[in-house]
């Protein structure tokens, strides 16, 4: 008959240690009762052994050894397996971790703003591009747009020196579809945008533009499992089924993207054609309500000087894609945009239906650059 002399560690336990381990975790009254009973048992055993000639220490050792491992006794007295504080701590941590993960996924909304995710295309991105026969080959800047809470309408624009186009999207329908089954306030409308530059086309072989593929990121809590939604039809070089020439000729290329908030200076960089500017942001760019935010900009330099020599003097022209999350409801009725546009292509007094909107950023810039021609 083999009996473990002590706990799992193999260490010889004293009488007190044995009693402590065997009664660990019991409610105070029960613990004292069980401890007294075990002690009475052990002391009687020790006394018996001492009568047989064992020394006190030896008698205690033998008495404790005869009791066996204290852990199963402790479990038996408790009625469950979580006897040690460590066990409870692990359980608490697991519950906290699981609860935190669940809360982060279900209760916490995604971080608002424009998260640029480099040029790596996901499987869904590839599917979206494959579905669009107009999608050009090239390197795509990808981004996930998370609109701020309170967005009732999103206005999209594709601004070129020769054309201004604006299109609203009513969020009420999206929110009602996506909010189902979600904790109130945890949903944010999200879009995925894939942007690349168009180096001319069949209709506009000399012009540069932007191609954008938009799609709505469906909520995990979508009402039905098979809903496919297309994003807004803005930001491609085709409008109303017809290609719109930007009128933008290039000698140099400059790009930037930034939120055109007031009092924020925008750094505009100039790159030769071969240098691709792909951004990967850890923290999303801010996307403020009721402000135009440029998602991607293709600036071309120069404005051809009077003698026809390319020059960096003068204003740069460009095309950009921008969004305006508005906290105002989408205007009803068929009334479209109304605005005034000056000879420089600046748009003023922009309204959509009865809704007054802030002026979109100008499609040209006063900056001058030192650039490497390509």
């Amino acid at each position: 008959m083999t009996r473990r002399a002590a706990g799992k560690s193999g260490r010889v336990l004293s009488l007190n240690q044995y009693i402590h381990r065997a009664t660990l975790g019991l409610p105070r009254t029960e613990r004292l009762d069980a401890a007294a009973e075990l002690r009475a048992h052990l002391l009687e055993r020790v006394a018996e052994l001492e009568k047989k000639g064992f020394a006190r220490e030896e008698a205690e050792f033998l008495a404790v050894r005869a009791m066996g491992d204290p852990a199963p006794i402790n479990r038996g007295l408790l009625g469950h397996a979580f006897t040690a504080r460590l066990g409870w701590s692990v359980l608490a941590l697991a519950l906290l971790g699981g609860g935190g993960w669940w809360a982060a996924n279900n209760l916490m909304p995604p971080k608002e703003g424009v998260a640029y995710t480099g040029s790596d295309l996901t499987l869904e991105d590839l599917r979206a591009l494959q579905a669009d026969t107009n999608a050009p080959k090239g390197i795509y800047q990808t981004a996930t747009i998370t609109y701020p809470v309170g967005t009732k309408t999103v206005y999209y624009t594709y601004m070129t020196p020769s054309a201004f186009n604006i299109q609203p999207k009513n969020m009420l329908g999206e929110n009602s579809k996506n909010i189902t089954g979600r904790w109130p306030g945890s949903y944010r409308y999200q879009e995925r945008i894939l942007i690349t530059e168009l180096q001319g086309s069949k209709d506009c072989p000399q012009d540069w533009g932007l191609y954008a593929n938009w799609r709505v990121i469906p909520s995990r809590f979508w009402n039905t499992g098979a809903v496919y939604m297309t994003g807004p039809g803005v930001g491609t070089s085709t409008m109303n089924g017809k290609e719109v020439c930007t009128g933008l000729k290039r000698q140099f290329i400059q790009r930037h993207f930034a939120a055109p908030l007031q009092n924020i200076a925008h750094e505009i960089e100039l790159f030769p054609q071969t240098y691709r500017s792909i951004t990967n942001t850890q923290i999303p760019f801010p996307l403020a309500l009721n402000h135009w935010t440029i998602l991607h900009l293709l600036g071309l330099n120069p404005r051809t000087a009077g003698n026809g020599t390319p020059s960096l003097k003068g204003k740069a022209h460009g095309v950009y894609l921008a969004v305006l999350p508005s906290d105002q409801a989408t205007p009803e009725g068929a009334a479209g945009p109304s605005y005034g546009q000056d000879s420089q292509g600046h748009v003023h007094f922009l309204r959509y239906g009865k809704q007054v909107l802030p002026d979109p950023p100008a499609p040209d810039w006063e900056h001058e650059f030192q650039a490497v021609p390509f």
Partner: protein
Amino acid sequence: MGGSSYGWGGPFAVEWLHYLAIQATLLHTLGVTPLKSGTLDLALLASLERQPRYGLEILQYVNARSDGAFDLREGSLYPALHRLVKSGWVESEWQESDKGGAPRKYYRLTESGQAALGAKKTEWRSLRGALDALLLTRLGWSGWSA
């Protein structure tokens, strides 16, 4: 519960532990551990049938009566008694030691414990009968001769 009233079991009840010990040995031959098959409760209840006993006394009684077949570890006794108390079959009481030593916690059967003991005895008899039929038929034995 009076210590002098043994009910129908009477002195015969003492023999229960012998039966259990024999069957425990048989179960060992089948690879079944009797303590895991629920006989521990029956053994403990049976040990309390005649009189209240304290932990060490129960242990010594069971081990002596079963000739050590149960191999009842000292430590495992108390969780089992604890369980019986929780199920209401046994109640406990601290009493001063008659030898002037430390006080002892005595256990005694409750009424429901008596009923549970009766039920477990019946259950054990049918199990024993089934095992006898199985084992002894194989050996060509035709019945108890005594």
